[in-house]
């Protein structure tokens, strides 16, 4: 009960605020209902954004449909589009930008209503627009941005006698040394401690390592660049703790569960965990993602946008009306509770101090996550993840693994 009323209160106050900012708009000529396929259930802040918007009674009513993770939602959208029932909008991972545009036919916001699009886009930091511009079309707004950072279980850290003052810019030497010390001090001796480190076995953190080493997965010219010495160095450092036994690569869910129950001391993962990690059994402290000694850092970011898939004009226009609200200061404020970075021009406070390293990384400058090109982009991520796994479990050495990934990706991504 408490929760419901709290949610209602928040939605209500946000709505009032939004009404003053956006101004009372005349209702559209005909009332429209749009459906958004999202990766957030009804208990997530996104629902509050939707509720706040609906409370404005602009004539547009939005319903939020939770469709699971990016991959599942994307697959569902394909079926919906083929069946002639596309969702008006869908949360689309940046990494699937090409797929969204070229295969699913995400719409160019400028083509729907260029004037309105321009006023919405003006809410965001201009330097981020390339992230959501695919083939010259603006298919979303660069707003739900996160970046991987380092979470540390402070209790375990202290028990191992490590310094609670974390460096501003940690590197792998420092991090791996700490992991070894943790293992030496706590393994087999502590009730909940089981493992020192987890870097997240996915396409994202491996990209961070390659970039921090000065390489690329896909270079700025759109070419696969895995066969570089820098990529090899990055992946060697990425795999090192796994090969050394400091890191047991598991799924994201298993990793999260282990960290939350105090079994895992260090975990590098999405900054969005700042909304939940530090408050469970594991009291967390956070730091920037580890850089590579002697190299300039070049961290990547990830995120999603709401792309418009509605084919008819009324639905598309209604979608813009919702985007306009989301982009406003009030919309962004509610939105930030997910644990996303503020990419808008509005002044929005951090949800908590655990987000500081992430905000720091944003200030340092962030690149996009790998946007897999070609209409088979969905497969690109799976292939890269597979090869990362192979390198982690020493099925191939790093050099051969990168070559294997390069060749297989090249075959899939060529027909763009």
């Amino acid at each position, binding site marked *: 009960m408490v929760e419901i009323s709290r949610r209602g209160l928040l939605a209500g106050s946000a709505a009032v605020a939004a009404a003053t900012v956006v101004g009372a708009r005349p209702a559209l000529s005909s009332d429209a209902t749009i459906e958004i396929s999202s990766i957030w259930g009804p208990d997530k802040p996104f629902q509050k954004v939707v509720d706040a918007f609906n409370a404005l009674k602009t004539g547009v009513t939005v319903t939020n449909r939770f469709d699971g993770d990016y991959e599942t939602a994307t697959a569902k959208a394909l079926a919906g589009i083929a069946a002639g029932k596309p969702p008006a909008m869908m949360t689309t991972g940046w990494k699937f930008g090409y797929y969204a545009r070229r*295969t699913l036919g995400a719409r160019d916001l400028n083509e729907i209503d260029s004037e309105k699009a321009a006023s919405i886009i003006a809410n965001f930091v201009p330097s981020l627009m390339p992230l959501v511009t695919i083939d010259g079309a603006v298919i979303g707004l660069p707003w739900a941005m996160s970046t991987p950072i380092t979470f540390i279980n402070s209790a375990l850290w202290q028990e191992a006698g490590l310094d609670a003052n974390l460096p501003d810019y940690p590197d792998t030497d420092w991090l791996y040394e700490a992991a070894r010390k943790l293992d030496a001090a706590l393994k087999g001796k502590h009730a909940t401690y089981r493992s020192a480190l987890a870097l997240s076995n996915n396409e994202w953190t491996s990209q961070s390592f390659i970039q921090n080493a000065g390489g690329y997965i896909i270079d700025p010219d759109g070419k696969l660049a895995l066969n570089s010495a820098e990529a090899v160095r990055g992946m060697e450092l990425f795999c090192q703790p796994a090969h050394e036994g400091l890191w*047991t690569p598991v799924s994201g869910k298993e990793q999260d569960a282990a960290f939350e129950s105090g079994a895992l001391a260090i975990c590098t993962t999405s900054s969005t965990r700042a909304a939940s990690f530090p408050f469970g059994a594991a009291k967390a402290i956070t730091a920037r993602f580890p850089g590579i000694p002697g190299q300039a850092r070049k961290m990547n970011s990830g995120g999603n946008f709401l792309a418009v898939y509605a084919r008819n004009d009324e639905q598309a226009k209604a979608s813009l009306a919702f985007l306009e609200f989301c982009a406003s200061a009030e919309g962004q404020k509610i939105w930030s509770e997910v644990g996303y970075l503020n990419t808008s021009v509005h002044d929005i406070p951090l949800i908590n101090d655990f987000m500081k390293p992430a905000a720091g990384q944003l200030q340092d400058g962030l690149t996009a996550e790998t946007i897999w090109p070609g209409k088979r982009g969905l497969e690109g991520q799976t292939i890269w993840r597979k090869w990362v796994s192979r390198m982690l*479990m020493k099925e191939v050495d790093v050099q051969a693994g990168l070559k294997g990934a390069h060749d297989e990706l090249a075959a899939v991504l060529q027909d763009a």
Partner: protein
Amino acid sequence: MTRSFVAKLAPWLFVGPAVLSVVVFLYGPILASAGLSVVDWNLLSPQVDFVGLNNYRSLLANTDFQLSAWNTFLYCVILVPAQIVLPLLFAVMIHAVRGSRMERVYRGSLFLPTILAYSVAGVAWSRLLNPINGLFNEVLVFFGFGPSRWHTDPDLALLCVCLVTFWKSFGLNMLLWIAALANVPDTLREAARLDGAGPWRRFFSIELPLISPTAFFISVTTVFSVLDDIVGVVDVLTGGGPAGRSSNLLYFLWQQGLQFFQFGPASAVAMVSIAIVLAITCAQFWFGEKRVHYQ
């Protein structure tokens, strides 16, 4: 006149819906797969491109396909005997305590996983198998062994999937065995006992021959239900990983076809799988027919 006409027509009316539905929904899709396997098309591509046998050719060269084909073989070799023999063993034990109040409890408990949803099973098992602090590892460590990586270990992943698949689906075969054993007349057992046959002899010379039709039935259906059941377990437990080590042909098909929407290659996988299914079925009938004792 009309009566005899109706009588002639009646059997067709009786079997019509069944025959039609399997033809339309099961044989039809298989024919359609054959067609899809020679084209390049997804739901959204504007035209259907005929590519001949290209899908098959690239499939045979695809190492993920080879790995999942090999895994399919391993799964069959491990799981099919397990799914036949162990449920029989359980059934024999339950049969031995028939009439006792606990019989229903045992039967119910052992059958319970069979009625669970895959999604539920996946959630329950991932807590047990978590390589960092799952309960299995806690137990291993407690007894002084090192922790295992379970389903994330390339060499164990397939076995973990076997374990969960077995757990999830041995119940139906067990019930079939229990029913078959209940059908063996007690007089025969008694006669053999009076002749001085011990429990093992009695089992092998009286019961086993009499339940051989069930054995045949189970062995035919198990191969395929095993293939199918694995897909659900893989989907919730490993996603085919690590690096394809726990995938099988049908999961590969599922991924290619319904995650990546590569209908052509996925349908080629379907055709290859159908060929294998047919070959196994024929072999089973060829071997089985001669050895089954019908009452």
